[in-house]
């Protein structure tokens, strides 16, 4: 199976029903806020990021992807105590990148999904770290080893989650 597409005709663009479009991000945000309190290690999982990547890659529309990322990120910011926009900016970039890559790559493949999710997790971390340090003057520690490990955990969960969310896809 080819990894890259050669023409626009090969691209399948999906859409989602309104309940899925609204409900899945909300559920991800809710679980992200609720689960780490019970299971602290789950704080390293970024469900809203996974949902952003999934919707962006499935829709294959950069504008739609960046807007999805922006909204999810801003809502995630609202639940925290820091200035609103840190996650918003990071997820906007990820949404745009994922949807742009979705046009060019076969993102239905589990291996590609794993690598893409790992990559976008790192991009997200770098953007968040840069903005938080540069604009908000937050003290954050960056560790490549830890970030790659957390990224791998997120990527593996992402593969499973994307497979589950594929069931909600509707062909345009």
């Amino acid at each position, binding site marked *: 199976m080819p990894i890259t597409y050669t023409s626009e005709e090969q691209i399948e663009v999906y859409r989602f029903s309104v309940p899925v479009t609204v409900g899945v991000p*909300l559920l991800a*945000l*809710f679980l*992200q*806020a*609720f*689960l*780490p*309190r019970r299971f*602290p290690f789950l*704080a*390293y999982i970024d469900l809203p990021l996974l949902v952003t990547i999934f919707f962006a890659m499935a829709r294959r529309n*950069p*504008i739609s992807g*960046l*807007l999805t990322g*922006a909204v999810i990120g*801003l*809502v*995630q910011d*609202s*639940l*925290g*105590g*820091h*200035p*609103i*926009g*840190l*996650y*918003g*900016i990071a997820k*906007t*970039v990820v949404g*745009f990148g994922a949807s*742009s890559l979705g046009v060019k790559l076969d993102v239905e493949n589990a291996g590609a999904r794993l690598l893409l999710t790992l990559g976008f997790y790192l991009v997200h971390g770098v953007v*968040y770290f840069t*903005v*938080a340090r540069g*604009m*908000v*003057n*937050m*003290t*954050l*520690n960056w560790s490549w080893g830890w970030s790659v490990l957390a990224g791998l955990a997120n990527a593996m969960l992402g593969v499973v989650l994307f497979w589950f969310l594929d069931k909600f896809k509707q062909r345009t």
Partner: protein
Amino acid sequence: MESILGRYRNLIILVGVLFLQVLGLAVQVKRSADAENTRLIRIWAVSAITPLERGLVWVQNGAGSLWHNYFYLRGVRAENRQLKEQIEQMRLEQVRLSEDAAQAHRLQALLAFKEQFVSKTVAAQVIGSSGSDSSRILYIDKGENDGLARDMAVVTADGIVGKVLQVFPSVSQVLLINDQSSGVGAILEKSRLQGVLKGTANGEVMLERLMSDEQVQTGETVLTSGGDQIFPKGLPVGTVAHVGGGKSLFLNVRIRPAANLSKLEEVLVVTEKQERQATAEDTVRMRAADILAQRLPSVPEKPATPEPNAALGNPAGAANATAPAGSGAAKPVTVPGPQLGIANKVQNPPATKPNGAGIPPTAKAPGASAATSIHEVGNTSTPGATVPGEPVKSRVSKPAASPASAAGTTGAPKTAAGTTPPRASEVSKPGASPASAPAGTTGTPKTAPGTKPPNASGTKPSGSQTKPPAMPNPAPTQPNPQPPANDDGPH
């Protein structure tokens, strides 16, 4: 031009959206000092997410409660027995602690310290978190409707948790002490070194601003210093987990929080703190002659026959407290007996009661024995208790009521008249010190508000009186006919 816009449309929109967010962020950073306004998006997000969390917590609690209260009752009987034993032990401990607390209050009054108490709390349940490891935030199920406001302290029985950051109608956001934007004034319990408690990026709690030449022991307890005006002084924060040399002049002191911040279920929000100036004027005014009079050995009074109703613990008898002889204005006063008994029980526990060595007794009028009989409960082993009840009365006598001062007193030294004895709850709970006990005395030698509440004899103990110096008691010891102490006390 149009072709360029069309070609780079996606990129332009991306830059536009990013620019807007950066602009919004910059505005927020600039206005960070003005944290009074809650962004509308926060309200919307919290309104969308927290009902789900609240519902899930409710279902979870309901299921848990159903299981634990109706099905899983194994070992409850044994646990009940253990808890009863624990209550007995804690009662003893409470008596000891209340004596210590009373002493602390007296000293505070003596030094005219301002006292701060946690007078009202609201219990709340943790329903969620920020979901991000860079922002250590909790959501609790109480908000503005329950009387919560910004900057209220959030604690548990183990220690402090954080402060209220944002308040919504039915939900509040709590900033944990391990968040890097948090700051708490703290003090080390033994060395009394003060510092600022700050969170780190990885969720640790550090005590900052301690000079590197200071000695800090691992395991030392850290308390709140009260300097932040949010947490009342003296609340447990945690223990020193690690002490390391800092880069600069300061030590790196890592604190292990007393409260388990990652597994919080219920918390208490301090909605009301009480601050009052402990009045020390009466305590300070104690004359040297009075102090001497208490310390010198003296000849005890003739034993008096206690009134029968007093021996039975009749409140009416107990209430007939009168002024010491020599005052010339002894008035029988009515004091609610049970309250008095409870108050005295707490204030003067048998275990810590001084033996009254060398404290001169005052003359007493009929009825005083009844009052002191309440006071003397459990004092069977006190060698200084030569007369049933009487030595205690003299021991706890206010300086003005002692012989040394009574001789020169021309006015009417007040006894229990007009002095409302505090309830036991007022005495025992930290929010109400003896300093707050309504004095109500109007006579010249009035009851010092900063000291213990008056007993039935209308006198009060002072710091030096409660802990007399150890010296041989010349007074002949007589058996105390009072019954031994019990938890109920005479009524």
